């Protein structure tokens, strides 16, 4: 009896592990966090995903799939990453990351914080630069499809603004490339520095 039981148990154990060779592949956030940081806080060129606005992230994944967002790192990494995500998998992932707690990168230039804050909150009316806070929120928290900027890496924000000035594209309806074109290098470094410290 014991012999039969133990063998049945073994059989059950083995049977439960028989691979299903075809079928639904779930979506594992680790497919994103290996580049975006184990807790999604960002890792070098890859930006923070934790606490980011989900509709914004969904739009970005769609624009990667459509190859709209075309800067070199997007092309090398994100086009492939988004290619195999279905609509529902994208939505699952963005909701997962949106709910994670975020930590500010704090890697900006500390000398430029005041200038960056002024630019972010008040803009520069004489230079016709709008205040970023009008769209991105007073704490850079973002809303709907407008991204949270608070705590993103200085290097990432600076690179995006510079790339838009160079002619790379954002998502289809984004006003950011035009806005970035009117910013000076100093302004870019100041606002990116400031934002990296915002909690």
């Amino acid at each position, binding site marked *: 009896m014991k012999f039969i039981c133990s063998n049945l148990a073994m059989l059950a154990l083995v049977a439960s592990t028989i691979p299903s060779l075809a079928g639904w592949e779930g979506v594992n956030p680790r497919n994103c966090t290996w580049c975006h940081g184990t807790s999604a806080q960002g890792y070098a060129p890859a930006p923070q995903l934790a606490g980011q606005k989900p509709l914004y992230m969904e739009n970005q994944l769609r624009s990667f799939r459509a190859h709209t967002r075309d800067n070199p790192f997007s092309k090398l990494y994100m086009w492939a990453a988004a290619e195999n995500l279905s609509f529902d998998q994208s939505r699952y992932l963005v909701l997962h990351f949106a709910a994670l707690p975020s930590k500010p990168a704090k890697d900006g230039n500390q000398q430029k914080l005041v200038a960056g804050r002024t630019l972010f*909150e*008040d*803009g520069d*009316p*004489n*230079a*016709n*630069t*709008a*205040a970023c*806070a*009008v*769209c*991105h*929120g*007073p704490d850079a*928290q*973002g*809303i*709907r499809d*407008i991204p949270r900027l608070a705590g993103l890496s200085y290097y990432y924000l600076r690179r995006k603004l510079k790339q838009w000035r160079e002619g790379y594209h954002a998502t289809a309806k984004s*006003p950011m*490339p*035009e*806005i970035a*074109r*009117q910013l000076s290098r100093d302004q870019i470094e100041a606002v990116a520095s400031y934002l990296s410290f915002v909690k």
Partner: protein
Amino acid sequence: MKLINMRLALPAAVLAVLFCAERAECASSSLGAKIEYCKTCHGLSAQGYYGFYPIPRLAGQQTQYTENQLRAYSEGRRKNRYMYNVAHALSPGTQAALAKYFSGLKVRPLSGASRSANSEGQRIFEDGDPASNVPACTACHGVEARGHEEIPRLAGQLPEYIFNKLVNWNQERGQDPHHPDISAVMLPTSHNLTKSQIRAVAAYLSHLE
């Protein structure tokens, strides 16, 4: 981002003065540059934009009203941190020119144009709510909600914007007790309408062209 569609909207003679194809071409004080600056937030066609805050439509707005608001912002009678910064840096002549420019723009409402019956909103707009001492809005704002002189156009305005303004009326307007202004006229109405009524009216207005 070239304003190709806008170029069709105005006569060629005006284009040369008003439009800078690339920002770098314009002096930052030029009217063209200022128009682009407004459009950064208010939308490419000044139809309004949902940023963190709902940013109102300027297209087709009454010239006098727009001018009055810009002056109210820079004088501190209307309180808005961002518009204070903007208006403060504009000369009265520029303010007038901008107001005139935006009044001439035509664009579909951001919420989409539809005349599908929104009975409660339409009813309040056209008949008011006598029980709450709310007059018919059409009396001042016009049947088409396009306003007149210093009374603003409401047609096609962002509904969330209308809602926020009415609900917060006395926190934002008439902020200088020594210099009361025409904004006081809306105070009782903003007070007497319930929030759901405001929502209904705002929704109705947002689809008007």
